[in-house]
């Protein structure tokens, strides 16, 4: 077992354990902080897969943007009188059974399939390749995403001001 495998198991354990706490803890603020560790673990897994730019984008957008937005949402939509902001849960047992069955089916498919896998050469840096792909083959999607972000920005601002 090489160093690569050890680091993978470390990041996988961090990701899955904190994701488990995100969906089970009753304290919303604590769940938001566990979500932070989940995002860090997922970024580590991206690095292990050779996706350096996506990992950095994950850290900037998820940790720096979405998580802060979620925490703001928690703060605004609760009357804060003490630190612990609880959330209720419904139907935990039947949902746990159903989700367990679903996960079992997907895991059975994943483990029993003989996947086509040729590990490609680990790229030194994906940045230049991704950049030229974005501005050549995928330029239409790139522009559309820009428009989408603009529309989302205007829409969110106008909805929140009403």
């Amino acid at each position, binding site marked *: 077992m090489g160093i690569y495998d050890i680091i993978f198991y470390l990041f996988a354990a961090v990701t899955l354990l904190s994701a488990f706490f995100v969906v089970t803890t009753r304290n919303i603020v604590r769940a938001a902080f566990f979500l932070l560790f989940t995002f860090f673990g997922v970024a580590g897994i991206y690095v292990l897969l050779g996706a350096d730019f996506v990992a950095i984008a994950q850290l900037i957008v998820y940790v720096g943007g979405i998580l802060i937005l979620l925490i703001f*949402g928690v703060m605004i939509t609760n009357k804060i009188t003490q630190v612990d902001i609880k959330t209720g849960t419904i139907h935990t047992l039947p949902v746990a059974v159903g989700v367990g069955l679903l996960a079992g089916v997907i895991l059975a498919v*994943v483990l029993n399939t003989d996947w086509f896998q040729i590990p490609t050469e680990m790229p030194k840096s994906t940045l230049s390749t991704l950049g030229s792909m974005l501005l050549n083959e995928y330029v239409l999607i790139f522009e559309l995403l820009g428009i989408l972000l603009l529309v989302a920005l205007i829409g969110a601002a106008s909805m929140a001001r009403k």
Partner: protein
Amino acid sequence: MEVTLTHFLVVSTLLFSFGIYGIVTRKNAIMVLMGIELILNASNINFIAFSRYGNFGLQGQLFALFVIVLAAAEAAIALAIVLNVYKTFVNVNVDEIDELRD
């Protein structure tokens, strides 16, 4: 045990299951959003893992980037909606919000 494609797929399957569990069981709308983020991350792990092991270039990473952009837009819009819901109903529990008009 040496890490192969299957390991990454197992991690993303478990992450997806946790996300589904969070979406269905939580009452607070913001906790539901956190479940959605977990599912989007699971899909991203799949995209990048297949991009690494499938031998067809970096298209998987590109689509993971698109997913991240969509997740950012989705979070902004969803939180604006949650704020409006909070102004109207004074709470954001998804099981108590069952009216479309005043």
